[in-house]
């Protein structure tokens, strides 16, 4: 079978495919020596000029972290992570205001260019003052290693009363808001990685949308791990007050390195009455090479609380990177009539592992949730969906629909489903369905017949398969995500 040979060629090609964002940038950094203890936490807190309560909270997180055991329920062997080998603080040194683009550290600019950030935004991110002319579309907060380097369109957003800044700035400028909401969705003792983040988080984004305001543009964060032996522990807090709306995007990249790097982030979303938050992620951390060497350990806690009536939180994620992805964006549906959504595409190839899914807690009356999860495994990749739908005894008329499909490409990968369904209310209606299959030979044949080669056919089928989720992404991201998917799985033949 000549065809088979070709298939093998193509498969080889994918497995050898280079990671597009695998560059590293040599910028002078402030790096704390590796290790984690009270002094490190005090140093970070002091460096950021934090109030006493925040330091105390960090220390609580640290002490809980030291007590907690590593999670052991996931469907893969937890790697041994030496938390003392990681540096918990790294920041670019160059922070003074600049007059024009020429003065900007060229390395930093090159990094932004490679990340695909438009020039105008590059200017702002690099710290060049003033920006005129073009109408803004996306406001960006770039987090470089542990520190937020710059935030764009702040002034414009401030006119509407929207606060969009790094969380360290928010601590200085809006301490009352931060104190009121920080840690109320993900408590410091939630899990080992959440405690670690609580103790050591160095920066992240803070968004507050005041009552009745609809955020006119997409807010976005770029995360990048750059320095060797550092971990990234950012913390995002988004609060949508009554009747507010915001759509938030998150993108991640990291350079290629032989060691595994740790990323343990926390995202907290809070939606009040009639508010809506849409949170989209395109996660493309360095996945390790084809032998599974290197790559990011992505252990993330994301949770949203629909506190108010008629509120809505929607998670959309496209997961193509990381050596290990361990994340379960959750929604707590407290308010009556609130809605939670979770849309996910997770791709694993080579030796990548993804154990991801969602948790939805129905507590209020007439709450609804919808879960669409699409897993794609190729090579030696292992893909698990893990989900919980819980209906409390007071959640009358709760409604859930869950669909999780898995696509297998090659006979050495795996797809797994672990849904938990727990209902204590007889008026709840919960549906769960899952399927696992490979790309049908008849589908490939159909497309071949019409002159589409196998490589394109697979891309077409995978994109069609993931469409339901990709459609949920904001336009700018949808295109990128689609490209990323095609690129990741180029030519895989089932």
């Amino acid at each position, binding site marked *: 079978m000549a065809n088979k040979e070709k298939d093998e060629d193509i498969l080889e090609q994918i497995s050898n495919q280079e990671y597009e964002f695998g560059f590293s940038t040599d910028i002078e950094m402030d790096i704390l020596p590796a290790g984690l203890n009270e002094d490190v936490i005090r140093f970070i807190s002091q460096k950021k000029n934090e109030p006493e309560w925040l330091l105390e909270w960090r220390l609580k997180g640290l002490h809980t972290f030291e007590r907690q055991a590593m999670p052991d*329920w996931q*469907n893969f062997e937890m790697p041994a992570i030496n938390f003392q080998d990681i540096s918990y603080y790294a920041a670019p040194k160059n922070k003074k205001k600049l007059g024009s683009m020429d003065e900007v550290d060229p390395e930093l600019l090159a990094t932004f260019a490679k990340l695909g950030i438009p020039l105008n935004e590059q200017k702002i991110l690099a710290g060049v003052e003033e920006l005129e002319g073009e109408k803004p579309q996306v406001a960006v907060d770039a987090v470089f290693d542990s520190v937020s380097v710059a935030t764009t369109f702040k002034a414009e957003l401030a006119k509407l009363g929207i606060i969009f800044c790094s969380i360290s700035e928010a601590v200085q400028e809006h301490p009352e808001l931060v104190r009121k909401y920080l840690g109320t969705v993900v408590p410091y003792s939630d899990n080992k990685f959440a405690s670690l983040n609580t103790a050591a988080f160095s920066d992240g984004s803070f968004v507050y949308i005041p009552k009745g305001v609809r955020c006119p543009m997409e807010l976005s964060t770029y995360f990048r791990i750059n320095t060797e032996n550092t971990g990234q522990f950012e913390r995002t807090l988004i609060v949508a007050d009554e009747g507010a709306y915001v759509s938030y995007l998150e993108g991640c990249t990291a350079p290629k390195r032989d060691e595994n790097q740790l990323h343990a982030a926390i995202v907290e979303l809070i939606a009040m009455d009639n508010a809506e938050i849409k949170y989209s992620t395109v996660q493309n951390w360095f996945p390790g090479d084809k032998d599974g060497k290197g790559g990011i350990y992505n252990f993330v806690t994301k949770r949203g609380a629909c506190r108010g009536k008629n509120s809505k939180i929607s998670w959309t994620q496209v997961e193509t990177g990381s050596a290990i992805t361990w994340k379960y964006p959750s929604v707590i549906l407290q308010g009556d009539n609130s809605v939670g959504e979770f849309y996910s595409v997770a791709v694993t190839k080579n030796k990548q592992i993804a154990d991801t899914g969602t948790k939805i807690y129905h507590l209020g009356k007439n709450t609804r949730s919808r879960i669409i999860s699409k897993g794609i495994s190729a090579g030696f990749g292992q893909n698990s969906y893990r989900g919980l739908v819980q*209906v409390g*005894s007071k959640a009358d008329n709760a409604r859930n629909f869950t669909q999780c499909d*898995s696509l*297998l*490409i*090659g*006979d*050495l*990968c*795996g*797809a*797994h*489903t*672990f*849904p*938990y*369904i*727990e*209902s*204590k*209310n*007889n*008026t*709840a*209606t*919960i*549906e*769960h*369905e*899952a*399927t*696992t*299959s*490979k790309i049908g030979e008849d589908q490939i044949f159909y497309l071949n017949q019409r002159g589409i080669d196998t490589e394109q056919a697979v891309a077409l089928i995978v994109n069609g398969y993931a469409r339901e989720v990709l459609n949920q992404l904001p336009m700018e991201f949808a295109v990128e995500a689609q490209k990323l998917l095609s690129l990741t799985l180029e030519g895989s033949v*089932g």
Partner: protein
Amino acid sequence: MSQQVVENSNSLSLKDSLIKEFELTYSKNQGNEPEALLQKREAALGAFQCAGIPTIKNEEWRFTNLVPFLKDSYQMQPSGMPGSDVIEKAIVRATVKGLDAYRLVLVNGQIDFSFSQLPDYQEGWLIRPVSEVKGTEAFAAALNSTLPIEKYPFAAINTACFSDGFYMELNNDFQLDKPLQIIHVYSDQENLFLQPRNIIKVRRGALAEVLESSVLMSDKLLFVNGVTEIQVQENAHFKHAHFQVGEAQERWIMHTQVEQLRDSRYDNYTLTLPHADLVRNNLNVILDGPSTETHLYGLYMVENKHVVDNHSLVDHRHPNCMSNQLYKGVILDGGKGVFNGKIYVHRPAQKTNAFQQNNNLLFTPNGTINSKPQLEIYADDVKCSHGSTVGQFDEEALFYLRSRGIGADTAHSLMITAFAFDVTSKIENEALRNHIEQLIEKTIAQAQAVI
């Protein structure tokens, strides 16, 4: 914190009495049993001691808290045998109307041939007490051959302590002409903790249908920790139905371990109706050869703070196997139902078709259902799916019936019967099917009387 201490001391007491029971029976067994069996028993005790009685921290026991069931003290051996009038009454209670079947009676886990009705012909099949066959090397070698006891503490302690049960063997190409009904009669003046071990071997090309049911003839507590090992060899077909209809003082932890060889077929029907206090079924089907067929049907109706927990594993190890699982649950007043179904497809098991469905109906506001359908797949050329739903009565269907002059109770009853029909209609034997349908109707009527 104080509660946890109490929990520990309680489970310790049962654990200790089980270990004591092991020490007692072990000295008795020495000399009667081959070394290989004694070694297996010791290893099993080690596994049990290591794991202890599972708590809700154990993922497999997350939804079923055993603590309330461990408070009582039990005798590990029956104090005596019930009179023949008691056994006769029990048989009448277990009889299925219109079912033409052979009968095997076990009293407190031991075969009583005098009340059994077995075929006249001697050739082709064998039924013996386990106490009689366990002395052979072959028995010891085959014991727990597919059952990893370190994962199942109750099967482990059963292995360590069992003394009796039934051993059934069907020869090559033997076909049992009538179904066999196995009636387990339990009766004692004291609280009883029994650990029967049953073994069924269906040899190449044989065909048999077995129905198991049990009757408790005393007002004392009964805790059964049973293990049944079944091997269905090449081209054989084994139909296995289990009726679990009990009294409120009954607690059951039943482990059924099935091994299927090439081209074999195994059908299981597990029908759990009230009122047993605790029912935990572990049903593991290991597909140890290609091109097998497996059908697992379950129906559970739970009421009044009782717990019914169905755990199953279908282990696809070879190509071209088909498995189909359908479990339906009706949660009546205050009951708790658990379903945990796992399908595991190993890398060589290409061309696997594995389907699983679990539907639940919550009849009253205070019931609980926990459902966890689970797929683990390591082969790519497979078709696997699972579905799980939790819901209540369809208001429109109810309205349709009510608007045609059908009372609320009758309408509910009709709808539950229809809900259960997907499972009951799969029972081929007509007498059995009628019997279970009547039991379902009776259960609904009782539940409605309570409400």
